């Protein structure tokens, strides 16, 4: 038997034989950091297990240890599939059937689907030529086993992210696989694609393959997990069944603190309408959109990815001109042909992707906050007044309580939450009358999220700004908006008021996450 051939292994007690992974006393220290501190972690063969925790809780470290990329501190007991292991490297993990699919996929975009799935076969080729028949056969059988249908000769770069992910899964289940680790697999998938992925995970389970699913989208965890392990600050908090948990409890377990969200204060009666959209349409993006937002009001827009919400927001911001319909600001019709024009008209847009669209990562915090208002800090001789931009930046840093080393520090040295606050600052500095927030809390931890939400509600309370909050997270719009529009395939399906049955409506009637 192959397990007995390897060095440093011995058969262990029968009681752990059902566990696929049974790790005890696992620690990992980095200089100044205890990434994992005496953690036990186990799950069974064929189980769909979720690992959750905040950034820095030790999830990724555990994955790396299971996949043999890093070694734990001495003293850990590691048992995989009933075999005790003293030292494991990536190759050992692969030999034991462990495969990891990381968030940023490791495919060859310039090669075809079949080559990506079966590229290991090149090495099996005897003689000078590649055996294309064997490559194709293996790709077909791997794809069939997860019911994936794709043109074998398409270039991987031409596929959607979801399809690429499935190609990578197909490639990884070749051979004797026992455990598939998925690290934040749904970060950039639409709802339909998530369903497809989950179906694949269940198919694998039927074949006896366990899945370790790492995510911080809580609703997905409830949907797919058989059991959930919660990590916090490098320690294990516990193992739970999804039915023991709800959103609030899970957040409490992950953070150790209760986050209480208060609904926004009601809009003042007689508050003027700041933004009105009438019959706005753009082919292929959205159709016949009409709504209005009053001063001090927070309008939520929710819907799956691809529902047209971001395209609509970009149209309001002048970056995706509508083909017909009209936009009114304070009752006056405006035409915004560019985002510069939109900014002048008092519209600000916090884009959904902080890293690529929101911030200029290598540049300073000061530069990032003042980029939208350079024209306004011009002083003598038409030159920039640096002391004014500095005092303006400091003002916003104080108002949003951004934690930073110095104004000259690159914005990439900040945490996700503080980065997002810099994006908010740069747009609030333009003194907008209409603020559009597109997924303002994606990828930031629970506390930062809460503090962004609080700030947005306070801003609305001032009563001179209309806010549009776009999110695919139902709870985000339920907790922070006065009204919610539900969009699907480019149309507004319904308007929902947050209240006792609103959650059920959104979740069930519109099948949202």
């Amino acid at each position, binding site marked *: 038997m192959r397990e007995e051939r390897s060095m440093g292994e011995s058969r262990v007690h029968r009681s752990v034989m059902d566990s696929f992974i049974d790790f005890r006393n696992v620690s990992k220290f*980095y*200089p*100044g*950091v*205890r*990434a994992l501190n005496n953690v036990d972690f186990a799950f069974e063969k064929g189980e769909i297990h979720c690992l959750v925790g905040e*950034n*820095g809780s030790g999830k990724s470290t555990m994955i790396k240890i299971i996949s043999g990329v890093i070694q734990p501190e001495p003293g850990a007991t590691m048992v995989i599939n009933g075999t005790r292991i003293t030292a494991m490297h990536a190759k050992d993990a692969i030999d034991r059937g462990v495969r990891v699919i990381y968030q940023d996929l490791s495919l060859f975009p310039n090669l075809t689907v079949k080559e990506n799935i079966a590229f290991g076969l090149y090495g099996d080729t005897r003689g000078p030529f590649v055996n294309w028949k064997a490559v194709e056969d293996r790709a077909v059988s791997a794809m069939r086993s997860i019911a994936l249908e794709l043109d074998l000769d398409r270039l991987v770069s031409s596929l959607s992210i979801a399809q690429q992910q499935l190609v990578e899964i197909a490639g990884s289940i070749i051979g004797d696989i026992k455990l598939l680790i998925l690290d934040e697999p749904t970060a950039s998938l639409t709802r339909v694609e998530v369903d497809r992925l989950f179906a694949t995970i269940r198919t694998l389970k039927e074949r006896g393959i366990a899945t370790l699913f790492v995510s911080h989208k809580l609703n997905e965890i409830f949907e797919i997990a058989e059991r959930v392990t919660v990590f916090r600050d490098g320690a294990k908090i516990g193992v739970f069944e999804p039915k023991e948990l709800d959103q609030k409890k899970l957040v409490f377990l992950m953070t150790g603190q209760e986050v209480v969200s208060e609904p926004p204060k009601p809009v003042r009666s007689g508050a003027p309408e700041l933004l009105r959209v009438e019959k706005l349409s753009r082919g292929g993006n959205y159709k016949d959109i009409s709504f209005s937002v009053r001063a001090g009001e927070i309008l939520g827009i929710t819907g799956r990815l691809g529902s047209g919400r971001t395209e609509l927001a970009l149209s309001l911001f002048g*970056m995706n001109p509508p083909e017909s319909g009209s936009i009114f600001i304070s009752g006056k019709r405006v035409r915004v042909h*560019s*985002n*510069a024009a*939109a*900014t002048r008209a008092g519209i600000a*847009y916090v*884009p959904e992707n902080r890293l*690529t*669209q*929101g*911030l*200029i*990562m*290598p*540049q300073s915090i000061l*530069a990032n906050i003042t*980029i*939208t208002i*350079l*024209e306004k800090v*011009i002083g003598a001789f*038409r*030159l*920039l007044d*640096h002391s004014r931009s500095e005092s303006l930046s400091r003002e916003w840093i104080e108002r949003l309580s951004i934690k930073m080393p110095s104004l*000259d520090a690159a914005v*990439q*040295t900040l*945490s996700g939450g503080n980065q997002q606050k810099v994006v908010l600052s*740069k747009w609030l500095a333009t003194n907008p009358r209409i603020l559009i927030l597109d997924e303002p809390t994606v990828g930031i931890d629970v506390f930062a999220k809460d503090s962004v939400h609080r700030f947005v509600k306070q801003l609305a309370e001032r009563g001179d700004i209309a806010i549009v909050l776009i999110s695919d997270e139902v709870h985000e719009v339920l907790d922070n908006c006065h009204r919610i529009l539900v969009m699907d395939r480019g149309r507004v399906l319904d308007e929902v008021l947050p209240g006792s049955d609103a959650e059920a409506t959104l979740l069930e009637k519109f099948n949202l996450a």
Partner: protein
Amino acid sequence: MFAEFVKRYQSWHDRNQDIAALPWLLFVVLAIMTVATGGRFLRAHNITNLLAQMPELGLLSLAMMVPMVTAGINLSIISSANLTAVIMALFLKGVFPQGAGGGTTIIIIVGAIALGMIVSIVLGLLNGFLVGYVEVPAVLTTLGTMILYEGITLAITRGFVISSMPEAYLLIGNARILGLPIHMIIFLVVALVMAIIFHRRPYGRHLFFVGSNPTATAYSGVNVRRVLLKTYVISSVLAGIAAVVMLARFNSANARQGSSLLLSTVLICMLGGTDPFGGFGKVLGLVMAMVILQAVTNGLNLLGVRSFATVAIWGAMLVGVIAYRYYQHQKWERKRKQLQRARMQQ
């Protein structure tokens, strides 16, 4: 007094880590060259020699730096300068009347320079249009226009050198004001203006933003295409000013004047702390880097190293600077990751 100076140096050092090593490097180079040449290096005659080539090299390096800050490059600066110089030379020779009076002379010279600037703007507009609006990568665009502009110049001159400019025009190359050569004054003024644009004008800040992340810059309401268009026009105008100086200094223009300077400008930009991946760069760094390189070349010359060997030394320095910058970058990345891990722990 001294403590105050140290404190100010510390703060400058912290804010300018990319060029903080240059003053020391400059000092070391000057010291080594002085000692090695037994003091010949510091004689007035040699210092004049040392400074002679700086204006045009500096202007061309600035022309290289501006697009480099936007993560681009302009390989056509030399051929664009030569085309400008040839057209100015033909204009000067064509319209300059024999024995013209002072007023006419000035008008004609100003006219020639104005013509040169117009030509530069047109050449820059083509580059800027291709890079900004057609979105052709800068390397390919300017490689193409480099050959195009050189070809046009060759066609105009049929390969000949156009020489013997009017005496009055040559003053730009050899007259002095308050002891400083006019071409040196031109360079210093242009460098100062560029430093002010980079640091204190919205357009200058936009350059850096575009260099680091054009998408986020566009989402911030900046017209990135127009910034790029302007960038290549400015680059071309700087090359045009270099052409004005070169025409006066060499008293001639041709299609292949100074083509070896292209490599030098890249080297000067990179040694001077301009990031070839865009987003960072300082005029002060560029000036220091240029003095360092000129001092090395000049010193080796005095020591009797053949100019062929000097080319190899420049190449070695370019490789060394690139390797050093990458090393520094990686060191910085590691430090950033450590910081991130430490922060996660908090």
